[in-house]
């Protein structure tokens, strides 16, 4: 088979893997057995499909084949160790349910992905393990590729996944949609994992371009699946909207000099308008549920930028009000800095600086922001605009010290050199919101 044909088949397998693995885990209750059986089935598929053609229902075909392999593996294990056979009999019974050998055409693959997502994102697992397990099982990514995306050796990632699966087994983390008393916390955990996956692709600088792209695409795909599975949850639609609205601007967010371009200065013809439209539609669905949380407010901010007819027509007052709302829902110094930038664009640099002042006075936020480069860069810019040269100089110096991005460092050094020199008033404002690109 040629490389393209194989890649196409692998793509189909990856698309179906979440559905198939979830159904297998639901029926045998064992992540490892399900994964091994699935890998066996994939190997058979990649051998047969090129010869016999891709079956009409690949998920059903893979599920049926994997179930047979799981039963074989259990029987094999049972023969080798007579004693443990009894322990696995219930698994065998569940797998063989329905009697006889199921035919793919008649196999209905129940959608158990919601249970799988909730299990993989269980707060009893370490956050990095949740991300890895979700990508591995629902995303169908290989351990090697998950490891590459997060810049850790494959053996480290394999160990991390192994530990997580062991804990699921040993502590009996149930394969189940959570009860109402834990619902909010559990949904939040799932949303955080999906957003982390997307952001790892959106902001990572170490992984390759293709890997980063794959992570963004996977984050969006997971958000879409979750929105379909939980249509009544406003924050799920809002997350879906947020990742689409960010992703639509991916070609415009880095300038020719390699430095990030603020939203209101981006080349709008580079935005993907179809994706923006999808994002706005998802945001409308979120608003329709009547439940408004931090993801919806963030998506509303992204939408305010997206729907401004020109960068110069950005509705800064509305955006500043949205940041104020976000701060009420989710107080953090970083949100405050973004709010100050928006406020300065709406009402001038002094208004922005007034919002930053409490951060300077509070020892806890001072400590938090001491090494946070975007804060010092944003503050330097506001001080420069307000004509407070000495303070601006100190802030630029700190921002340059902390800067790890070469093009941005050059830009900041230029600004520092020009500072308060009446012969060179630099036009426009360079700084947008942090991470708003």
């Amino acid at each position, binding site marked *: 088979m040629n490389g393209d044909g194989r890649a196409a088949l692998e793509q189909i397998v990856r698309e179906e893997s979440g559905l198939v693995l979830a159904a297998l885990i639901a029926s045998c209750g064992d992540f490892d057995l399900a994964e091994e059986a699935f890998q066996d089935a994939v190997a058979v598929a990649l051998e047969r499909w090129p010869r016999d053609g891709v079956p009409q229902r690949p998920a059903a075909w893979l599920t049926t084949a994997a179930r047979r392999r799981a039963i074989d593996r259990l029987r094999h294990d049972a023969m080798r160790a007579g004693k443990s056979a009894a322990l696995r009999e219930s698994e065998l019974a569940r797998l063989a349910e329905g009697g006889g050998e199921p035919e793919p055409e008649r196999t209905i693959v129940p959608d158990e992905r919601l249970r799988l997502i909730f299990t993989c994102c269980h707060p*009893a697992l370490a956050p990095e393990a949740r991300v890895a397990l979700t990508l591995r099982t629902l995303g169908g990514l290989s351990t090697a590729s998950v490891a590459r995306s997060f810049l850790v050796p494959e053996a480290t990632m394999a160990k991390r996944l192994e530990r997580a699966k062991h804990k699921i087994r040993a*502590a009996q983390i149930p394969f189940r949609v959570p009860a109402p008393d834990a619902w909010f916390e559990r949904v939040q955990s799932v949303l955080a994992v999906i957003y982390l996956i997307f952001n790892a692709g959106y902001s990572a600088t170490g992984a390759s371009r293709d890997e980063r792209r794959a992570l963004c695409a996977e984050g969006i795909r997971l958000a879409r699946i979750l929105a379909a599975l939980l249509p009544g949850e406003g924050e799920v639609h809002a997350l879906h909207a947020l990742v689409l609205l960010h992703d639509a601007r991916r070609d415009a967010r880095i300038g020719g000099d390699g430095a990030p371009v603020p939203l209101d200065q981006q080349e709008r013809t580079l935005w993907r308008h179809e994706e923006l439209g999808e994002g706005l539609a998802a945001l409308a669905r979120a608003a329709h549920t009547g439940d408004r949380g931090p993801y919806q407010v963030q998506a509303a901010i992204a939408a305010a930028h997206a729907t401004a007819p020109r960068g110069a027509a950005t509705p800064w007052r509305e955006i500043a009000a949205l940041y104020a709302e976000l701060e009420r829902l989710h107080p953090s110094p970083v949100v405050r800095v973004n709010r100050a930038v928006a406020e300065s664009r709406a009402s001038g640099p002094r208004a922005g600086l007034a919002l930053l002042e409490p951060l300077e006075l509070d020892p806890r936020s001072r400590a938090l922001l001491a090494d946070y480069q975007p804060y010092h860069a944003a503050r330097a810019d506001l001080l420069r605009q307000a004509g407070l040269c000495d303070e601006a100089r100190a802030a630029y110096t700190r921002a340059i010290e902390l800067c790890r991005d070469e093009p941005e460092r050059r830009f900041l050094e230029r600004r520092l050199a020009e500072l308060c020199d009446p012969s060179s008033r630099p036009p426009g404002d360079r700084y947008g919101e942090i991470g708003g690109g």
Partner: protein
Amino acid sequence: MQYALLFYTTETFDSLPPAERQDWLAQMNTWRKSLADAGVLRGGLRLAPSATATSVRRDGDELLVTDGPFAETKEILGGFMLIDCADLDAALAWARRCPIAKIGTVEVRPEHPEAVR
């Protein structure tokens, strides 16, 4: 499946003013009763302060008995409960309702698959 709920608090709990301590004890008793009523309680103890602890461990070829807990930490094991429930989510639901969770930490640990009974 059996789970141990281990209660970690600072020792200040024992030096609370009597009225406050009584209130905490009442809350713990209510919680304990709800465990018993649900039929999940298998046992448990509230432990005396760590100043009363004695540790036994090997030192070379000998067994050494020393005064004090296993480790001197700010939060100490103040007690535990043994519960029997279907899965971790059920155990966590009980831990969430435990009054200790508001002032200290409730660690939830499953029994080992090769548990000795």
